[in-house]
């Protein structure tokens, strides 16, 4: 049962991501952070996430309120216990500077959210399989 931390502030977008994840891998156990601060607290197991698991994958929206998405890879990659967690940025921004910044901070992948849900599911499948393996692998 892979634990996936999903950081996303837009409820609609979060719905689509969760739907896509559930489509590609029903065994995924999603954990939700509604902003950057929550995401960092989760990773640091700070209240109210003291018992939180170490996620197997972080799906990160880039433009997060409170604490910006960029802080997540920055903290993760500089903290030994969580350094190895794959991070996939999933965002509507295809701005070059965001791509570059994300790559620079050690993000594993940068995925632009496709407008067509089908296309989006395809890209989610692609990276979940890459970092979590298939459902069949787990079984």
């Amino acid at each position, binding site marked *: 049962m892979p634990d996936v931390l999903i950081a996303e502030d837009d409820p609609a977008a979060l719905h689509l991501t969760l739907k896509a994840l559930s489509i590609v891998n029903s065994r995924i156990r999603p954990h939700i952070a509604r902003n950057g601060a929550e995401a960092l607290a989760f990773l640091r197991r700070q209240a109210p996430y003291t018992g939180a698991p170490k996620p197997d994958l972080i799906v990160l929206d880039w433009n997060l309120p409170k604490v910006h998405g960029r802080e997540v890879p920055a903290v993760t990659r500089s903290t030994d216990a969580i350094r190895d967690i794959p991070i996939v940025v999933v965002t509507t921004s295809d701005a070059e500077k965001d791509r570059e910044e994300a790559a620079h901070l050690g993000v594993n992948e940068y995925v632009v959210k496709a407008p067509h*849900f089908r296309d989006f599911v395809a890209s989610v499948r692609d990276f979940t399989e890459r970092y979590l393996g298939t459902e069949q692998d787990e079984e």
Partner: protein
Amino acid sequence: MSTTTITPAIPGIENDWYREIVETAPDATVMIDSDGRIVLINRQTEILFGYERKELLGELVEVLVPDRYRGKHHIHRDGYFGDPNMREMGAGLELSGVRKDGTEFPVEISLSPLRTDRGVFATAAIRDATARRAAEAQFKNLLETAPDAMVIINRQGVIELVNAQTERMFGYKREALVGRPVEVLVPETLRDQHLAHRRGYFVDPKVREMGAGLELSGRRKDGSEFPIEISLSPLETDEGRLATAAIRDITDRKKSQEQMRNLLETAPDAMIIIDQRGTIKLVNAQTERLFGFPRDALIDQPVEILVPARLHDKHVGHRKGYFTDPKIREMGAGLELWGSRQDGTEFPIEISLSPLDTEEGRFATAAVRDITNRKKSQEQMRNLLETAPDAMVIIDQTGHITLVNRQTERLFGYDRDELIRQPVEILVPERLRDRHLGHRTGYFVDPKVREMGAGLELWGRRADGSEFPIEISLSPLETEEGRFATAAVRDITDRKKAQAQFKNLLETAPDAMVIIDRNGRINLVNQQTERLFGYTRGELIDQPVEILVPENLRSRHVGHRSGYFDDPKVREMGAGLELSGRRKDGTEFPIEISLSPLETPDGQFATAAVRDITERKTAQIKLTDYARNLEASNRELEEFAYVASHDLQAPLRNIISFSELLHDECVGKISEDADRYFGFIEEGALRLQGLIKDILEVSRVNRMERSFITVDTNECMETCRLQLRSVLEDSGGRIDFARLPDVKGDALRLTQLFQNLLNNAVKFQRPGVPPLVTITARRFGEFWEFAIADNGIGISADECVQVFEIFRRLHTADEYPGTGIGLSICKKIVETHGGRIWAESEPGKGATFRFTLPDTATVLAPEQAHA
């Protein structure tokens, strides 16, 4: 021989021979007996006394004696018969005879006795002494009137005769001298010597003139001695050979000679006195020094000893000529003369000559001056003059030209000889001569150096009468020969012309031009300066240039100005200087200045071109504001672009995604219309998404960084061809291109450019016609012109321009899909590369899009790159 017809019988003399002798005697001869009776006379007696023979024979001889002597005559006669002997004529006796007519006349008588058996007779030879007495009287008179002391001595040295001058000169009475040896007049120490001379003289007597080199002394009665000069001449008389000595007291002459000698010695020049024969009679110490001869080696030598051998003949000629017409000739009267030293070396001299008339005749005095140094310095000066670039004219105090150089000849058109010794006014235009005379005289009163161009406008006059503007600098020249003035004359015709041209040029300059001298004084301004600063020209000339500088900057400006003259170079306008000018009314305004040094014959100047940049300043401020605004709006645009890329797309994605999900949920549960509504929602949302993407693209191209590299356009083309492969395969179209050039640019953007153009070329195709696209490139200067030609639908001429406008679409989305932003992005990309893009087409005949891109070697101007 004739016999006398009447001959009284002389007692005792039977024969006629005696009678005949008496008749032939030259003198009147009278024979008397011891009683004094005349017994015989000759014809001469008859003639001399005017008697006939018969009237005298038998008469007492006293008939022939004047009355006043007659009474005493018989005493002489008796005395003679008492001791008859030969007595010569004129032995000191003054005798007279009386003629029959009673007239008396001086006679000289010699008596001789004649002893016969009839007793003693006496024969008297009587000569008329009238002529001789007259001659004697004349001689004595002559003697007395002679200027010199005359002393006549006989062979024995006894004084026979002296004149009054002798008495005066020697202090003796005549009587005390006559009959005494002449040595009484000779100093005792010299008497022996004199005796020898005197005897020698009588052996070979001849005329010896005065002053023939004899230094003699006389001795007065009081024993004092004095210098004399003697000329001797022999005097033959009846009484034998005498000697006449003319004696002259030369005390005064000696004294004056002494004085002259002293004078000579103190003369600064070598003084040489020669006589008419050219013999040196006197020299001074300077002569010894100058010629290296000791005095003794010169005296009595021909003066030519001091003249170089090569000039001897000529000199002799000159010398003789001088004595024929002797007059004073001053030094330096144009004669080039040479002296010769004892060692044979020559040296240039100057001679002044003056005749010297003395009692001893005419001499010539020559004052000789060594002018080696002067010659040298003159030579130097002459050389210097010749090397001078200007015409040099040297005049003396009287204003006469003494020296000119070649430049003067050239400049004024005269030969040197035509100028030398002429008044300098020959070089001055006639209208100015009077004034010049005044100036010249004034100059010699207070001569000082006056430099060229000291504000004087002067004119020269050529030999042909033409005039030309000149500039003169004057300097006094002090020499041994007095004060001169040197004038350096420069023809400034060309400069005047150039100045006029320069002034014209200045006036036509668009900027205010201000020329200042080293001291910062304004020398020249143009009309623009007057206009710009509000001053008239007259108010500016000769003012410090700081008059044009704001007051608070003036002191700093002075520093800058002097600094500039220390290292003057061209400084162009707008070299970062923020300057201000000050108008006459005190207002200030921003200016820009370019400076350039101006070298002139009058010195160093600086030219300032002053430009009023008020307008530019205003424009700059506007521009800066504009740029600031632009920057702000660019920032806003960037923000917008970013927002567009995320915040606009996020809700759009939600619309699309949930519309799709909803649609899926509703499949089969909704009407056909409702089903189509989902389609409209999705289509609209997708179009909106495309527009947002395109706008983002445009803003990206705008913000593109200009880091251009060499780009191989063939590679761009290959990328495009690959992307279009499926489209081409579907339509059966083709893209043709030969080898394309390298350009300078951004590879990604250029690929985008080709892509958009090729997309269009393939897209706008006539139905059923396979697209054929040809790409070519040719070079135009530093650019390559690319042409992408298709065989598509084409566009009209108006549309050729419109197509590049943003969101300009010529067709509906049904016909040809697209947002209408592709070509405006192409335009942006091309222009960002410094090129331009345009379309050529006719509807139905395909379209050709042309654009230029810079060659790899092209250096793009910033404005070109940002156009």
